[in-house]
């Protein structure tokens, strides 16, 4: 499990263990993912943190990702059948969404909510529908309750709608009622979600505290990447460049209707915003993969209707088939062959190495050898994630910062850069290295009487 997944798993686990939800504006994002996860893992039979499994947790993004594919059916009315079908197929089979639709992070739910906002918002504007406006307000609140960066999308969508409306609405003015309906549901749903349905009102104040932190985070915090990072990421593999080319063509063809033009402007704006922000991770690319999938659909639609000749349409179908094979290859490589290998798979970003799975196994083995039924484990590290997830089955684990004095322990787990104040304590212990992430190692220190083996 990736560190970010482990943090979300830990939050879910604490709630399962009876703790109350506390919104943490520093690095933990909004409560929506956990609010959705808790009932699902309950249904799956999980009763406490130590019983949770990766599959139980990852079922949540799988379900949300599947719902996103189905949600494209609602896009037919707005964007047309072919673009919606193409986008749904891309979301169902392309490597980026398939990979991250199994990651227990907020992105999948955030993208689903964004699609919901785009569809209901467009429908509300075009049909003056109060129901659609209310839905748009709900989806916007859901986005914010997933990730505070929703505000960037609100800005991009707002600007895109303003430009699209000016260019394609022929002077019509949207009704004020739909804005009021959207605002009311946004506020109501937002308050309900953030306060954990009225139980934690301080979350609303904490939300404001998230702003300076997010501003600092945008600066990079170790995840700085060049402007063109997402372009290289999306163009990678056998199918990436072709898909990007089609997306670009789709942008050109999207100028004829308000909905399509607005989507194209939104795609360009949100792409530009994410490129300008130094902080970049591969899963953030899902945010522009959403409009890109529809833009690719616009290009395919345009090609399909360019000529009614059987030969031309046969050629288009063959081309789509070949593209499908290229996509299948990329999905196989990134999702199934090298799912956690950061050297061969750009999506496996700072992923937890397979090696760490051996740490709890080794601890159990050593405890058994030493006849320790409930081993006391001291973790001394500045950043111990994702250990709380991997050590969840041990009930006696303590976490200390390197400067703190630890309690008595049967086993110690340290990073490689803790101060040498532990030296006296560790001088007779055997070190076993474990990889956590690329370039991050931990050392398990065990009594010299135990046998060190990784067989």
């Amino acid at each position: 499990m990736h560190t970010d997944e482990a943090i979300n798993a830990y939050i879910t686990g604490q709630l399962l263990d009876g703790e109350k939800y506390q919104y943490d504006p520093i690095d933990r994002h909004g409560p929506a993912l956990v609010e959705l996860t808790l009932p699902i893992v309950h249904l799956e039979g999980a009763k406490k943190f130590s019983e949770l499994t990766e599959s139980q947790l990852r079922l949540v993004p799988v379900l949300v990702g599947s719902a996103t594919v189905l949600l494209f059916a609602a896009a037919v009315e707005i964007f047309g059948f072919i673009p919606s079908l193409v986008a749904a197929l891309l979301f169902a089979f392309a490597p980026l969404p398939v990979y991250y639709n199994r990651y227990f992070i907020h992105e999948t739910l955030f993208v689903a909510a964004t699609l919901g906002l785009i569809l209901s918002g467009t429908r509300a504007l075009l049909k003056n529908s109060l129901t659609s406006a209310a839905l748009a307000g709900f989806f916007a609140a859901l986005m914010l309750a997933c990730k505070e960066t929703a505000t960037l999308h609100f800005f991009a969508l707002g600007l895109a709608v303003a430009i699209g409306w000016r260019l394609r609405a022929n002077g019509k003015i949207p009704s004020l009622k739909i804005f009021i309906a959207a605002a009311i549901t946004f506020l109501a749903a937002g308050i309900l979600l953030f306060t954990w349905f009225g139980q934690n009102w301080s979350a609303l104040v904490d939300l404001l505290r998230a702003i300076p932190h997010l501003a600092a985070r945008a600066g990079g915090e170790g995840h700085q990447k060049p402007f063109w990072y997402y372009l290289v990421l999306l163009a990678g593999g056998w199918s990436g460049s072709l898909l990007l080319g089609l997306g670009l063509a789709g942008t050109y063809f999207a100028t004829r209707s308000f909905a399509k033009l607005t989507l194209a402007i939104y795609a360009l704006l949100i792409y530009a915003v994410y490129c300008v922000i130094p902080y970049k991770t591969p899963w953030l690319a899902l945010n522009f993969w959403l409009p890109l999938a529809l833009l690719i659909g616009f290009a395919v639609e345009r090609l399909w209707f360019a000529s009614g000749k059987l030969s031309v349409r046969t050629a288009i179908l063959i081309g789509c088939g070949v593209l499908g094979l290229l996509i299948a290859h990329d999905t196989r490589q990134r999702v199934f062959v090298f799912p956690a290998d950061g050297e061969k798979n750009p999506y496996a970003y700072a992923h937890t190495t397979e090696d760490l799975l051996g740490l709890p196994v080794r601890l159990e083995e050593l405890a058994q050898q030493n006849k320790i039924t409930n081993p006391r484990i001291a973790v001394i590290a500045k950043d111990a994630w994702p250990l709380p997830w991997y050590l969840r089955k041990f009930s006696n684990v303590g976490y200390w910062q390197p400067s703190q004095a630890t309690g008595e322990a049967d086993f110690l787990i340290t990073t490689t850069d803790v101060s040498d104040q532990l030296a006296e304590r560790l001088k007779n212990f055997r070190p076993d290295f474990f990889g956590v992430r690329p370039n991050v190692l931990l050392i398990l220190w065990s009594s010299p009487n135990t046998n060190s083996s990784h067989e």
Partner: protein
Amino acid sequence: MKKLFTLIASATLLTANFVFADDLVPLKTDLPKPLFVGTPVQIDVPNLEPKLTKWPEFSVPAGSVNLAKAKKVTASDSDPVVGTLDLVTDGDKEGDEGSWVELAPGKQWVQIDLEKDANIYALVVWHFHNQSRVYRDVVVQISDDPTFSKDVTTIYDNSAAGKDRPYLESFYGKIIDAKGVKGRYVRLYSNGNTTNKLNHYIEVEVFGKPAA
């Protein structure tokens, strides 16, 4: 009388040893360029190898050369996942892709045929150095027997059975004291690493002199 004879014999042997012993010179080799800022190891614990911050001082008899250069390499995995076995002794120690051979997961070995018996004084191995890693169960043996079924001398062992400690890979490589052991074949074992279960070799240098 017997005591006097023993004393004279010992003194003669000591003098002979002093006169005929090889002069020791510092072991030198060309280092590759570093590819990452290393994982620091600040814990001063006797059973943990410190991270190298400079090329360590290590002496070998004058005239010792890298006997492994361009010599034939065989391995337990005859069809490496990435690269070819000749990369182990081709002189290229850089850490970029194309410089290493990747062997199958689990316990694997590579073996260098020095073509003649030699007195081996030091061995330097670079498994992988574009990421901070520890290779597991590293064992180095020397033998006259290409099958390593007899006359095997183990010069390094950080597996469960050995007394050596695990170490962090770096562009300095790892110097192993071979103490002048005589043999023609050098075999290096490993058992995956802290990133994956695969085994890698960028370069192995064997410093020694052909046996008289």
